[in-house]
């Protein structure tokens, strides 16, 4: 690690040490969706010094996004999110290599072989299920989802865990917009990043164990899956 890197990451190295810092810097994560969860998850990973990020999202920024999509501002309305996210993330930390993946996640999507872990920051089950089916065996998948004051984070290991579409069979994809607040998005995104670090350090805390969070009464509970 260079002197400038040691300085840049000094405060977190005080907490987790140089070995874990090097593991973060040599890791590659796919961010599926750079909307609410994805904007903050990608930003925190880049601030922590993640080595490489792949971004996929074909959305265009609109006014209802600004309450929670922390990489963007008013002047960005109407622009495509993926290149915007790349631009902003690059401004935060130019040492992270950022790769844009064109298109959208469907049954034809292929996860790049260099990806160590996937962050599911999507907003619908159909795409989530397609993404999970596209994983090569042995890939960690950190799922985040939310609605209003509630949300969940879950880690699966492809080829070993029960498939996502089996676990979430019978879940509801609401018609239209889903309630999403800046605070809950930040909480769930922060928990996802904490779990992603653990995954990158080969010690996931939520493998086959869904953390269910409620801000209404500050509750946390686990559902084993």
């Amino acid at each position, binding site marked *: 690690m260079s002197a400038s890197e040691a300085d840049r990451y000094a405060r977190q190295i005080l907490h987790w040490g140089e070995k874990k810092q090097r593991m973060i810097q040599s890791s590659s994560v796919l961010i599926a*969706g750079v*909307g*609410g*969860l*994805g904007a903050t998850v990608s930003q925190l990973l880049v601030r922590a010094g993640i080595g490489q990020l792949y971004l996929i999202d074909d959305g265009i920024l609109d006014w209802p996004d600004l309450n929670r999509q922390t990489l963007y501002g008013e002047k960005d309305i109407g622009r495509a999110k993926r290149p915007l996210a790349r631009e902003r993330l690059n401004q935060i930390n130019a040492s992270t290599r950022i790769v844009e993946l064109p298109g959208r996640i469907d049954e034809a999507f292929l996860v790049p072989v260099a990806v160590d872990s996937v962050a*599911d*920051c*999507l*907003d*619908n*089950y159909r795409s989530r299920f397609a993404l999970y089916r596209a994983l090569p065996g042995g890939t960690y998948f950190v799922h*985040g*989802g*939310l*609605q*209003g004051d*509630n*949300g*969940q984070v879950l880690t699966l290991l492809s080829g070993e865990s*029960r498939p996502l579409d*089996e*676990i*979430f*069979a*019978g*879940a*509801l*994809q*609401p018609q239209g917009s*889903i*309630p*999403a607040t800046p605070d809950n998005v930040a909480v769930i995104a922060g928990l996802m990043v904490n779990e992603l670090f653990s995954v990158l350090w080969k010690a996931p805390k939520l493998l*086959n164990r*869904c953390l*269910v969070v*409620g801000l*209404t*009464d500050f*509750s946390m*509970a686990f*559902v*084993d*899956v």
Partner: protein
Amino acid sequence: MLHVKFFSLIRLLLKREALDLAWSEGDTVQLALARTQQQIPTPFLLKLLDEQGAPYAGTIILVNRRNIHHLQGLQTPLADGDTLALFPPGAGG
């Protein structure tokens, strides 16, 4: 004994995290849910099942970590000691 656990909006609605039920020979998910409702004053089965008794989309029902969609649905048999989890996950991101 059967262990019924409530999560997220179901837990908030019922104002409780779990309920233990006596197990009976021949028990199923459907029977356990009906007995759960009998022991809890807040109506919740109406939100879980339609008029024909089929589950609405929205709340996933797990028996010992497995979704009943991949077992025998509401007719999934329950053994003494089984855990039933009712969890409506958030879809947004």
